[in-house]
């Protein structure tokens, strides 16, 4: 977790900083709604404040789900992310993080950490500058306005995920997060809802997928899904020793090493 930084770029209004524990004690949409209207600059105003979380935080119309058992850890998604957003190749700036232990045991040797576009988004709720917001003009994607962000890192602390999905940009001194590729100045494709996402497009294993339904928010499993089919199993990449790939059923014992008799055609 990066160290908190005093706002330097601009004068900051009195900030209310939540600790992770504080946030977790907050329950109910009304409390969250109050936090929103008092601390953020999203388009919702007190006069028109809705009284339900669903209205207050309109759900994102797009999400990234992934299959951590299908991932090969090549970090292509990470580098594509930094490429389209910054025109550079960087793992630290990537808004999706792949973490792996080469010595570890499958499947616990690797984790994928993209932003969940939370239905109740702590980063938006707790941003004291209104920099983190719901982009109602672009499918309700949760975003961070780089012009407004003062680098206080509250959103990093408030993100309940481990690792936090808001990303510290050490170059600009601001926080960033996945925008589903809405703002990709270094890519010729249209991103965002209805467009393409660089990580999805470049993943060689097709282990990341854009979906328009809201995943189960309670568990990681809502986002970490099975994207494998029989072709994957036929590569010998099973997730249980009892699984027999279709092509290996009724297979004779493997031959010892040595060249098969050639039956080459001309």
């Amino acid at each position, binding site marked *: 977790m990066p160290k908190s930084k005093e706002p330097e770029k601009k004068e900051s209004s009195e900030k209310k900083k939540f600790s992770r524990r504080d946030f977790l004690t907050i329950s109910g949409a009304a409390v969250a709604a109050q936090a929103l209207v008092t601390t953020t600059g999203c388009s919702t105003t007190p006069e028109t404040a809705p009284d339900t979380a669903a209205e207050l935080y309109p759900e994102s119309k797009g999400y990234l789900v992934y299959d951590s058992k299908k991932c090969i850890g090549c970090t292509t998604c990470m580098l594509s992310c930094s490429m389209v957003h910054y025109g550079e190749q960087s793992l630290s700036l990537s808004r999706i993080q792949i973490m792996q232990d*080469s010595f570890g045991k499958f499947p616990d040797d690797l984790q994928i950490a993209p932003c969940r576009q939370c239905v109740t988004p702590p980063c938006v709720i707790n941003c004291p500058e209104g920099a983190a917001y719901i982009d109602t003009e672009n499918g309700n994607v949760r975003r961070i306005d780089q012009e407004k962000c003062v680098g206080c890192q509250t959103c990093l602390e408030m993100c309940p995920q481990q690792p936090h999905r808001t990303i510290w940009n050490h170059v600009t001194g601001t926080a960033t997060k996945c925008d589903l590729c809405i703002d990709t100045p270094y890519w010729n494709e249209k991103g965002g809802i209805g467009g393409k996402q660089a990580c999805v497009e470049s993943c060689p294993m097709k282990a990341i997928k854009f979906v328009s339904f809201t995943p189960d928010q309670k568990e990681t499993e809502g986002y970490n899904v099975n994207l494998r089919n029989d072709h994957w199993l036929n590569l*010998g990449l099973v997730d249980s020793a*009892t699984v027999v790939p279709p092509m290996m059923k009724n297979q004779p014992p493997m031959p010892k090493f040595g060249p098969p008799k050639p039956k080459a055609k001309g």
Partner: protein
Amino acid sequence: MKGGYTGKILRVDLSNKEIKTIPTEKYVEFGGGHGMGSAIFFDLVGDQLPFEAFDPRNLIIMMASPFSGTNMPGSGRVDVQGLGPMLYPIEWFGHSNFGGRFTAQLKFAGWDGVVVEGASDKPCWINIVNDKVVIEDANGIWGMDTWDTQEEIARRVMPGLKLGEWAEVSDDDYTTQVPAVVCCGPAGETKSRLGALLHGPGSQAALCGFGGVFGSKNLKAISAIGTGSVPIADPKAFMDTRLWYNQFQWNVDNPREGNRFITGMYKVSAGAPSGANTTNSQIPLVPARAAACASCPRGCRMRLASADSNESVCGGTMTFGGFRGGGGNLKTTRNQNDLMQKYGFGHWQLIPTRGYLMTLYQRGLVGKGKMIECDLPLDQADSAAFPMALMDAMATRKGIGNDLTEGAARFAAKYGLLEEDLHKGALRLTYWGTSDHYDARIEVEWGYGSLLGERDLMLHMMANYPLHWMAWTGDPYLTAEQAAKLYTDAMVPYNGDEFMADYSEKGIYTDSKVKAVAWVKHYEKFWIGAGGFCGWRWPMCITCTTPDGRGPTPEAEPRFWNAVTGQNLSFADAMEIGHKIYTLDRSIWVLQGRHRNMEVFPDYIYDQPSRGSEMPMYIDGQWKYDNGAGRKLDRAKFEDWKTRFYKFEGYNPENGYPTRETLEGMNLKRVADTLESRGRLG
């Protein structure tokens, strides 16, 4: 330098405990990677040659490429360069590469490469954290196996590191990544000539014995972690190219003719994930993921639920126990091979060394009271205990282990067996002390290319996978004629000559084959070497993943290169730089004593008939797949072929030395001057 380079190369002097930098700009004409490494080697110590590999003057050079740390597919490798103590009879200026994440992290830390010179007076390791570089004391690490070494160093570099959390690397810089460590094992510490460098559990620089060079320098490891960026000259063009490349990848959800291309040898050669771990291919399968090097869209390796043989491939999984288990069970096999990785032995030379020992045992020459005294349990060679006993003896230089750890060639020479066994084929160290691999009488670009280099070529994606293994399956997806034409179409600038792919009795001595071997060497030096490409991924002249069989070569390479660097390099331009790098390497070998008279195969290649090896051949006016069984290499014809090759490359055919005209035409006047001062200018 618009993109691809960080701008500075790290130079570490272990003797004087000095950290210096070399501006990358000085070597940009060599591209990167191997090219820059060769030039740096020549500039720093070329005029002092010859000297021995364990001399402190020897260098360990690990240069990144402009592609390192980028999304360029299959560019996650690094060439280690320096004098190779494993090579024979001269410790040639050699190279050995390994995959993983090392050069990516080196680039993110802000370095285009690392050059290590001198020797430390006590065990040390080099700690690279962004711009900060420290020569650390290896107390408590020296003596550890390669796996423990890496985990301990990761703990020392980032004490707060936990998988799945952000950790502070330096002030206000954070990462979720772990340090990339390359190290030697106990084998390297005792200067074994078979000592490898390990990165991760199974990524080896297996050839040349650079683990032993680490040991000779009292250098245990180099660790790199960075939070910076690699600049890209034209990000949009790069991203477009990366997505264009997708069509050549194995489609994991709907592979083209999936049932065909993941059976038998296609599983390794077709570009499908995971196939290179040879010990997890029979039921019951151990649950596993395919695991990739940085930026590789293939993922040829595996990480298992048992964590056995993680990230090991090919020889790294089959040195002990035999292919798919051999006489033992798979669990034992995996553990034995993992033990090899932990000791830090290079698998590709441990295989012939162990095999030769057993051959001598069967001949009655080795054992208690025999000509070669040995107290290893040779009668229990199939047991799980034998590999440990063998490797422990070698790593600690006990008994016969002290001789074996010198490598098979020097071991045989010590007991007066080398000359006869090498030439009769009992000890098949075909290329400069490295093992026979593919038949030099048939698959000649491999054989000739190795002999005209300094060690086994080890480039499967030349003709080997695409042509040989396609035919070897017995189910080739292209006819021999189609394959020859498609393959050679990609061989710019010599494209259009399909007979470059003719492996017939006649075809292996033609001028077309001169061009083919030159193409292999130039591609090896630029795209593989300077570009950091993987030899299991590039070149892709043909592929089974596209309907027309065409691969991304030669379009992809310059598209990626120019997008990253901002240069305007054509494929042919790059191949000429490859020619230049090859010529520079050759000049260094000449300074070490190379002469065309040395570039001959062991007698068995000329005198004993080949068992055959399937390749496209043009016979009696028709293309066909044939194996050429029974063929012997003709000495006179091969010598004539060499003469034409030397002329083609700009070398004096009388001695194989590069000429002044050739060198000066490559902006290598300083090399010509050095050769002339030694009386070795061609």
